[in-house]
């Protein structure tokens, strides 16, 4: 199985959005918004640091220094290349703060600390002149979204035998088809930035659409249709392309009527022949302020559970990560609220290379006790190919432990080719864990606990 982040990705132009970050989102995404006024400042937690000097000895650019009290990082020298992160024996090294450049902590300030200062709040950042879009991009982590073609070529395969037609019992009610192809609603583009590293064939964008005052309620796992303007060679209007939303139910920015999509620019079809995807190129080239015709929302079963202690297992490749990003982010917001006791989140995410994994930075900054992240890269130079099902087999014991519980919900999204390998790995994990696979799969389907969406 290959990942859908390849140049030979899905002809309909992938979905996919960032897997959520934390307050410390990647510098890449900040940079992508071309804001020179902020930095993601690297800091060392003086309460956890043991002053072993490993970071200072490791730093290739001499950004780290110390006195008799603290080890500190020079903001203007640190790249940040992360060379110091793994060698740190304590974890004290892995701290980041979004700061206006003018207010970056000096080493003199850092040398005086006994504890790390708190994050600047949204209001403090705004007061310091940091644009809202930067604060939003950095603060809440988005997750990836799934797109499928609504009309014609390649309708998403309903992995009929296993995939459940029903949502989890605790799913929220989903509105569908509020706007159809004959009467689309209009959304305004409020953000568009690249979420894969520049210099690679894979060009994936994070696009934020705002519905203004028009109702457009969506849930994580649902999708929306985008109608590209113009007509095809035969003079017929373009049909809509469907993309999973990458944002949680209360908006890409909480409390706003907006959604985000993650869209990969399609430059080849499934067979690898060069083709310029109409919708994906349209969406990837959108400018802030552009108006877009939107239909939907769609989807009534690929929805997340909402009851306390429910576990979510997410398996995806490339742009199939969009709904996973949405679910992850919703759970992250609930966790921050302190009013919801979430269960375990486990993610298996495949891409060709690290650089082509959308939202790599934000994803890696999620705490491990919040989400158990397993990344498979199939094209890392000098290393054997690793696919999501290889990782699932490695984590078989932990998967089986989750499958054993009636509160575990499994979501699979990505290229159709991944389906079989993933289902076999799930089956083997269950069997190795002493579970009867046929009965388990039937029960999960009946109870809305196993969902596959491939294309």
């Amino acid at each position, binding site marked *: 199985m290959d990942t859908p982040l390849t140049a030979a990705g899905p002809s309909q132009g992938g979905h996919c959005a960032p897997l959520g970050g934390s307050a410390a989102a990647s510098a890449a995404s900040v940079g992508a918004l071309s804001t020179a006024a902020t930095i993601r400042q690297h800091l060392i937690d003086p309460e956890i640091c*043991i002053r072993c000097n490993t970071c200072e000895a490791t730093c290739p650019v001499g950004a780290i220094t110390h006195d008799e009290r603290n080890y500190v990082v020079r903001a203007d020298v640190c790249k940040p290349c992360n060379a110091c992160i793994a060698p740190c024996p304590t974890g004290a090294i892995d701290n980041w703060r979004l700061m206006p450049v003018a207010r970056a902590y000096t080493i003199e300030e850092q040398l005086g600390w006994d504890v790390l200062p708190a994050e600047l709040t949204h209001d403090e950042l705004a007061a310091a002149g940091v644009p809202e879009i930067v604060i939003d991009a950095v603060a809440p982590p988005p997750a990836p979204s799934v797109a499928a073609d609504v009309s014609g070529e390649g309708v998403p395969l309903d992995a009929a035998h296993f995939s459940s037609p029903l949502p989890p019992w605790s799913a929220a009610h989903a509105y569908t088809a509020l706007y159809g192809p004959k009467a689309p609603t209009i959304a305004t583009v409020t953000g568009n930035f690249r979420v894969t590293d520049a210099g690679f064939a894979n060009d994936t964008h994070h696009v934020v659409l705002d519905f203004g005052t028009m109702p457009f309620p969506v849930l994580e796992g649902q999708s929306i249709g985008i109608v590209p303007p113009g007509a095809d060679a035969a003079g017929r209007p373009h049909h809509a392309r469907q993309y999973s939303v990458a944002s949680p139910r209360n908006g890409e920015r909480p409390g706003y009527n907006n959604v985000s999509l993650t869209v990969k620019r399609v430059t080849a079809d499934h067979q690898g022949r060069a083709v310029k995807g109409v919708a994906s190129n349209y969406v990837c080239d959108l400018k802030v302020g552009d108006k877009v015709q939107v239909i939907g929302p769609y989807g009534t079963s690929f929805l997340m559970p909402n009851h306390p202690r429910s576990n979510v297992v997410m398996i995806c490749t490339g742009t199939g990560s969009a709904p996973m990003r949405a679910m992850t982010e919703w759970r992250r917001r609930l966790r921050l609220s302190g009013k919801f006791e979430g269960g375990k989140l486990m993610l298996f995410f495949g891409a060709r290379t690290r650089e082509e994994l959308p939202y790599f930075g934000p994803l890696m900054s999620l705490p491990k006790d919040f989400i158990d992240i397993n990344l498979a890269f199939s094209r890392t130079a000098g290393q054997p190919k690793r696919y999501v099902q290889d990782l699932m087999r490695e984590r078989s014991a932990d998967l089986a432990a989750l499958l054993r519980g009636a509160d575990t919900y499994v979501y699979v999204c990505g290229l159709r080719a991944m389906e079989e390998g993933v289902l076999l790995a799930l089956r083997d994990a269950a069997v190795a864990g002493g579970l009867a696979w046929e009965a388990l799969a039937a029960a999960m389907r009946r109870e809305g606990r196993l969902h596959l969406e491939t294309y």
Partner: protein
Amino acid sequence: MSAIDYSEKIPNNVNLSQDRTLQRALEHWQPNYLAWWQDMGPEGSRDFDVYLRTAVSVDPSGWAQFGYVKMPDYRWGIFLNPGDADRKIHFGDHIGEPAWQDVPGEHRANLRRIIVTQGDTEPASVEQQRHLGLTAPSQYDLRNLFQVNVEEGRHLWAMVYLLHRFFGRDGREEAEALLERRSGDRDNPRILGAFNEKTPDWLAFFMFTYFTDRDGKFQLCALAESGFDPLARTTKFMLTEEAHHMFVGESGVSRVIQRTCEAMKELRTDDPAQLRAAGVIDLPTIQRYLNFHFSVTIDLFGADQSSNAATFYSTGLKGRYEEGKRTDDHLLKGETYKVLEVRDGHLVEKEVPMLNALNEVLRDDYIKDSVGGVNRWNRVIEKAGLPFRFAVPHKAFHRRIGALAGARIAPDGRVVSDAEWNAKLGEWLPSEGDRAFVASLMGRVVEPGRFANWIAPPAVGINKQPVDFEYVRFN
């Protein structure tokens, strides 16, 4: 930067396959090493899957790879930091000459002695700690113990490589002897005193990793300056691993203190008896452990005046801590340094040639570094709003080596009479009763996320994993 060759029996980044004689010698030593690990390594741990860090290369991204490993299958190997072909000796009589890639004949005996002494401490600490797994306060701590153990094992490999590669038959014999000595053995003990002491409980283990592994850090730092380049490169890589060991010690003691402070606030008492009844370790007992481990460890730096130390320095074998960062002439001839002695019932300073006092120089650098962590422990108490503060004892307290050996000096630096010494010893050093009490708390806790009552959970897990992660699978 060369990658480590895992296709071979002995992982290495030193092109072992190019030197058949050396490879055979090490392949012959390897089964003996594994037999030693089986006999003297962590007791009853053979089939555990432990979430361990393994080096796969010596660059920052490669040397901290985490995954489940059965300890006898740990990839012990030979890793040197990348070399610098233009490196020059930067201290002593050979200053400015190219660093040696081979052992100069005239320094052979001294270098061998330095390497054997360092190498001997590595298996010794594994032996000292081999029973601790049976009383681990949590899975997290058990995993940390095992990480320390396998890395001490790797440090032994590092020294044995040097012995085999550069010291011929003598080196091979010394390498065998490293597997034959036993910590605390009456007939064939380890070379240095502190490595024959028992590590009977986890408070002692944390103190050991904080104080005694920090001695390791300073010795390795001094050797990382060596004019003998393979030794410098080997010890540099060992230092990256050593940092974790000191972390285990500093955070371990800190968590014990934190738990005690919680109990002190809950019970509104500082009465050791009440605190002990509540199942936590009272702060004065922790201070006595500190006094013991600090004083035993500073003896490891050797006699305060030593012609050997002068020779090691002048011949370019062993530098000072951060030699490269110092701005003096790096020859030290004519320089002086103050050492202590007891004269007429008082501790007095006396000036001696610095070259002869280099053990004392390293000891003083070490003391400064140790005090920093003790102050951070005090911050835990301060944060809890309690008045107690820890202090390291005077460096003349409870010494067995050097001019101060056997002197009756209180922790505050006063020279005291035999009578006062004997009367107060129980206040200054852990008594049998203290040790018995601490031992009584040692029960095994193995459920993920649970911790023994006498210790607080850590602030963060290993490798960003949650604290209740399954760090050890017992199978």
